[in-house]
Every structure is written in C-alpha cells, then in structure tokens.
C-alpha cells in the first residue's frame, strides 16, 4: 500500500513536472525567432524580430473591412497618454497600463485574469509622463521595465513578480519606458533620461535570475573606441564648454530594438545627445548618440554603428524601431530600413553598417546632402531661422511598418513643420533638466501664446500636418501619401491582405489600401491614438487592436 502510494505520488510528481515543463516551455526562444510562422500571435512589441509591424493575417480584407465591428473595449484606470502595444499569446493578451501595471486579458472578450500593480519610486524622474510601451515574454515569464529604472520578471499565469533587477538609479534621471526585447536566454533593455544628463546604455539580463549579463554604454568613456568624438574643449573657448561632457552625454534608449538571428546581431536606435541643443559645450560628433548600433546579442560587443545626425543640436533622437528587410531593392543585401526623426529615410546594410541610401521624406534644411559614406553635410540655419523638420521630427517614435506584400515602407510623418532653436549653456546638475536651451515652433503668429493640438486643433495645418507616406525602400521615393489635418503620433500596422491600419491625434482609426493609400474605412474613437495597432487571431476570428485615449478598442468581423 505504501509502495503503491509512493508510486502514485511519484507518478503524480512526474506528470506535474511534465505539465509544468510543457507550460514553462510555452514561449521558447525558437518560437520567438519563428514568430512569423504563428501569425495568430503577436509575440513581441513590433510583432517579430524584424519589427515590420506586419501580419500575414488576411481574414479582414479591403473588401470587407467596412464591416468591422467593435468586439470589446478595455479601459485604463489611470489618465494620460497611453502608449502601450500589447502582446498576444494563444488567446491571452498582456498589456501595460499607466503607471507600471500589467494586465492579462482574455483576447476575445477583454475580461481580466489578473492585474499586476507596481508603484514606481516617488522620486522617479521622467521627462514625458508615466509612459510604458509594452512587454516581452519568454516561457511563462513577462518582462517589464519601469519608470524608476527597474526590470521586473512577472509570472504570466499569476501576475506575481519573480525577480526585480535594478537597472539604474532613477534619482540620476534614469528610467525605462520601452518594451524589453528577449533574445535567447537574455532580456535586453535600455535606459531613458536624455533630457537629464544620463550616460545611456543597453544591458542584457539573464531571464531566469535577473543577473546582468552584459552592458553597452551608448557614450564611450575616454580611451574607448568612439571617445575621440567627444573632443577636448578648445583652449580659451569664449563659450561655455564642458570638459566632462561625455559623463552626461545622453544617448538614451526608449524604443525597442530588433534582432537578426542569422547574424546574431541586435539593433538599437540611440537617442539624443545631452544637452539637446547647445552643441558648443560638447564639441565633436558625440557618438553613439543619434545612431543605430549593432551589438552581438551574446556579448553586447559593438559590431558596427551608423550615426544619422552627428553633433546633433535639434533633439533628433534616433530611437525609431529598426525595421529589417531582406533582399533590398532586389539585391542580395539584407538591410535595416529607417525613417529617422531628422527627416531622412535610410537603407543600411545590416551585416556591415554600410550606408546604402539616404533621402528626405519630408522637408529637410538642416543638411543638404550626404558624402559617399553617408555623413550628412550639415547646413545650420542660424539664429532665429526655422529648421526643418521641427523639434518633434519628420517622424518620431511612432512605429513604422514594412509590408513584404507591397514592398513599401510606411512612415507616420509630420510635414511642413519647423522649429526655431535657442541654444543656451547648461550646467549639469543631477536629476534636473539638462537641455541647453530650447526650441519653439514656427507659427503663423509669432509670439502669440496658447496654440494647442487635438481635440481642438488650434495650430491647424498652418504649423504642420500629419501624413502616412508610403516609401519605396529601394529609392526612398514616395509611392503615395495619405494626408491628415492634425499631426499624428500613431504607429502603423499592415496585413497580408494589403490593409494598413493607423490613427492620429484626431482620434480616427482608419484602414487604408496599402497599395494605393485609398481610405477604405474609418471610425472615430474619441481621443488621440498614440501607439501602433496590432492584429491577432483567436479561433477563426482575426482581431485588430488599437489604443485611443484611456481605452483599448478591439475590432473584428461578426460571424
């Protein structure tokens, strides 16, 4: 009897172990690499490692998109600019909500299984509100970066924290706002704080223990490669120059990178230099600010970099999501395509970092041309003159999309928009604003205060307007443009049926024909759309998700 009981118990343990093994292996590293093979899911911030925000799902088509119906709504309890983009795993949706909560929802009804609440430290320092853009997953573990620069592993079944790693000190201006990226057995995050004089970095943590595996500083220390671009202050400099500029040189990371499994390289866009506007106090190109860096995913070692805006004085963060495209322009070259905040579209060989193409997609006057290595010939406009694109950029962090069906790159753009810059010396003081002056927008009524945006668009198109621009990634030329009256902070989703979904500050959620830009369907959701839509399938129904204001809306076709 005893033996029987023991045998039964041993068997039960074995079954439980097997079950737990199966459950723990729910999302493997291989599944992440092969994410395009399971289009019913949306396994990471931009869908898969190529970050194309493209799904082959095709139940919703240009012909039937007009029949889309609201399936459910989930409302966030905390007011503010909600920038999250969910992940979906086998019928479960995981989202972040302000400040640093995580919710696990039934992806077909919106009903919650659990909500994990994390309260960031009260002394956190973040420039732009309690933003969090999403999660990463491996096995049964979710990963979230927090406003007070912690990285937290959360049990995806129960919503309880497993470990917490302190990535940086929030009192020094560090924060994390982007969704982490899991590569093999590591979870990779970077730090925000480009307006607070941080020294930026990207770091990888062991998914099981939270122990730091590697760290790459986006600002090299003296003697390291790239440090020569933080030049010595000229003797007898008449303007303020900071001999320790590199120590608080910025280079924040606030959007999720991409990964090429064959090359084992992970690509990250690096934010602005600190201080943002006063170049005199930090002579040199200021690497690796405003660059894309290609890092070995196992070691964090820099393989190559390309700097979009050397010695930036315009706050042209290069944090855009790196979009990987194979066989660029019919060639055998695999590239990163990149519509940059500085107004140019780029194609870069992602194995070597070689500059292949740079072409403005909006009005650009801070530079005139590129040399053969892709270095821009800068044309500063001088005191009081407008610089195009303006401070918020020709685009910004809003997710672009690439559709392999159309071979077009889609960028949410701000057109005819300029700023006038007033640089000023800025002494670094820990935890305080470190921008070196500031911009003001070129307005039709100089000096008149009180202009605003959505829901009352008092700027109007006199101070710029939004657009979706479809670019040929081989040439950078526009194939079509969908113009909006207000500007847009909404990302773009494309699908296998040649649909393009996007929003804007006006609150419209709209579907365009990805081939032509023709408007096929729209609905008014009532508040600005500030993140990228996703799509997924549960059972036989395709869903499209978008966040507007404090609410997440999920659409699908009725049976």
């Amino acid at each position, binding site marked *: 009897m005893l033996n029987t009981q023991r045998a039964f118990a041993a068997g039960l343990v074995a079954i439980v172990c097997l079950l737990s093994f199966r459950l723990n292996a729910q999302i493997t590293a291989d599944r992440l690499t092969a994410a395009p093979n399971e289009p019913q899911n949306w396994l990471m911030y931009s869908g898969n490692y190529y970050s194309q925000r493209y799904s082959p799902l095709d139940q919703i088509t240009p012909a039937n998109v007009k029949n889309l119906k609201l399936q459910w709504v989930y409302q966030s309890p905390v007011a503010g600019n909600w920038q999250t983009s969910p992940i979906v795993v086998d019928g479960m949706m995981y989202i972040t909500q302000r400040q640093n909560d995580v919710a696990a929802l039934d992806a077909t009804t919106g009903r919650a299984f659990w909500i994990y609440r994390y309260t960031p430290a009260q002394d956190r320092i973040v420039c732009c509100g309690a933003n969090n853009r999403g999660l990463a997953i491996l096995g049964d573990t979710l990963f979230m970066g927090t406003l007070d620069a912690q990285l937290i592993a959360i049990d995806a079944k129960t919503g309880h924290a497993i470990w917490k790693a302190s990535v940086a000190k929030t009192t020094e201006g560090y924060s994390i706002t982007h969704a982490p990226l899991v590569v093999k057995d590591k979870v990779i995050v970077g730090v925000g704080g480009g307006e607070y004089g941080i020294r930026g970095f990207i770091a990888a943590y062991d998914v099981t223990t939270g122990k730091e595996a590697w760290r790459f500083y986006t600002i090299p220390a003296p003697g390291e490669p790239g440090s020569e671009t933080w030049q010595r202050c000229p003797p007898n400099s008449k303007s303020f120059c900071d001999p320790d500029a590199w120590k608080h040189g910025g280079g924040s990371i606030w959007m999720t990178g991409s990964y090429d499994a064959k090359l084992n390289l992970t690509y990250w866009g690096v934010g602005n230099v600190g201080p943002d506007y006063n170049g005199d106090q930090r002579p040199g190109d200021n690497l690796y600010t405003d660059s894309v860096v290609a890092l070995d995913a196992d070691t964090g070692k820099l393989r190559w970099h390309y700097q979009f805006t050397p010695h930036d004085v315009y706050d042209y963060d290069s944090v855009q999501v790196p979009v990987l495209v194979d066989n660029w322009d019919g060639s055998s070259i695999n590239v990163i395509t990149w519509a940059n905040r500085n107004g140019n579209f780029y194609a870069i060989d992602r194995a070597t970092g070689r500059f292949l193409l740079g072409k403005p997609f909006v009005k650009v006057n801070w530079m005139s041309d590129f040399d053969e290595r892709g270095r821009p010939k800068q044309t500063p406009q001088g005191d009081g003159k407008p610089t195009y694109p303006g401070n918020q950029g020709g685009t910004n962090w809003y997710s672009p999309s690439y559709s392999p069906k159309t071979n077009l790159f889609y960028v949410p753009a701000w057109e005819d928009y300029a700023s006038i810059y007033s640089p000023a010396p800025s002494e670094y003081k820990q935890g305080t604003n470190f921008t070196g002056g500031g911009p003001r927008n070129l307005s039709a*009524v100089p000096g008149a205060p009180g202009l605003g945006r959505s829901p009352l668009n008092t700027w109007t198109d006199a101070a710029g307007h939004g657009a979706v621009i479809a670019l040929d990634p081989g040439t950078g030329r526009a194939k079509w443009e969908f113009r909006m009256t207000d500007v847009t902070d909404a990302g773009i989703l494309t699908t296998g049926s040649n649909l393009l979904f996007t929003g804007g500050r006006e609150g419209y959620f709209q579907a365009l024909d990805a081939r032509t830009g023709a408007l096929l369907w729209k609905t008014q959701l009532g508040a600005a759309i500030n993140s990228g839509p996703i799509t997924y399938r549960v059972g036989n129904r395709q869903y499209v998700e978008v966040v507007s204001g404090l609410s997440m809306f999920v659409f699908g076709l009725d049976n």
Partner: protein
Amino acid sequence: MFITAAFLLLAAGQAPLHDAQYPDVDIAYGAKVYAEKCVTCHGTQGDAIGGVNLRSGRFRNAVVDRDLERFIRAGSPAGMPAFNLDNAEMAGVIAYLRNMNASDNTAAKTGDVTRGRGIVEGKGGCATCHRIGVTGSRVAPNLSEIGSARSPGSIERSLLDPTSQMMPINRPVRAVMKNGATINGRRLNEDTYTVQLIDDREQLHSLLKSDIQQLTVSTTSPMPSFKGTLSDAEIADVVAYLLSLKGQ
C-alpha cells in the same frame, strides 16, 4: 514703427524676440505684475534678497526665457513659491525682468482701463463683432479672457495689424456645399474629414468635407486696423482694458 518692423522680421521667420526686442507694452505690463506679485520679496530694485539681483537680467539657472518661465511656475526650494501666472502676465514679467536694468518702472506707462473700456464699447465699435461677457456679437473671437491668453504686445499688434496676429484657427472660411449652399464663417476646429465653424448669423456648423464642393480658408483678417483711427494713447487704453479681461 519699430514694433511693426520687428514684427515683419518675425513673420518672415528671421529673428526671434531677443532681449532688446521685447515690446514696450510687455515691459510696462510686466512692471505692473512685478509690483503686484514680486516686489514684496525682491524689492523695487530687484535686489532685496541676498545673492539675487534681478536687475542684472541674467540668471544662472534660466538662460533662455523658457527656463525663466519654468522657474517662475515651479518656484524654488530656496523659498520662492510657485507662481501660476497667465500667458499675458508671464510674457510681461519676463520682458520686464530682462529689461529691468534699463527700465525705470516708476516711469512705465500703461493705458487707462476705464478709458479703454469706453473706447471698446463706444467709438471702437468692437462689440459689432466681438463679445465680452454677455455683450456683443459672437462672429469674431470672444474677448472675455483675452487678457490671460495673449501677451500685451500681441494685443497691441492685433489692433494695429490684425492679420498679423490672427490665429490660424480663426481664419475666415467659405464653404460651397455640393447641394449649392454657401456658408461663410469663422473656423473653430478642423480635422481630416470635417470642419467646424460659426457663421455670420452665429450659427454653429459641423461640415463633412465630403459634402463640400469648395472650401476656401482666407489668411486675411476681416478686422479693420485701428492705426490712424485711434491715437497711440487710445490704443494703450484699449490694451490696458483688454489685458484686464481675465475671464471668470
């Protein structure tokens, strides 16, 4: 004349308002605000607090005006409270602080509110188009809070060269509808698919652009200039009255 010339430069995007170019009317208004809100601690000469000399016009932690505004709004742990100034007050105080050294605030002249009100309600004829409180037409922008929204300099320029200060949102629109109707009015809001306006009979319209055959947005203000119609002193009086309109 100087103001007009300065504005033309600005309109062409040639030069920002630098220290020497703050409108006199901003400086004068700022002196009043200073006398009401700042003088108790900082003193008439701006040097009543040890180590702080406002008359220098230059500040270690507020190199550009935006920094100065942020500092005033946030206050200082050293003991200065936060000041929630409206746009006109902030523009004025900054202009005054930047020019305190060159400005004799006892000589600063602003217009007379009562006389200004008389002009606005009388020979100025402002109520023909504008509304203040419960009086006047709604065709042009409501002025009940103009003293909070606009800087003194902007109000003065509005009177002399209205088109130069017309907010783009307020531009006159003419919508010729596909059904043949024509609607003239002032734009209130616009998005990709619709436009909202108030017409010349004070009716509100929200129009679908798909129903509009031709939409014309004018960049010229229908308001007449008061240059030559009102004297400099009368203009100053009107500015003073409009600056007193802070809403409820």
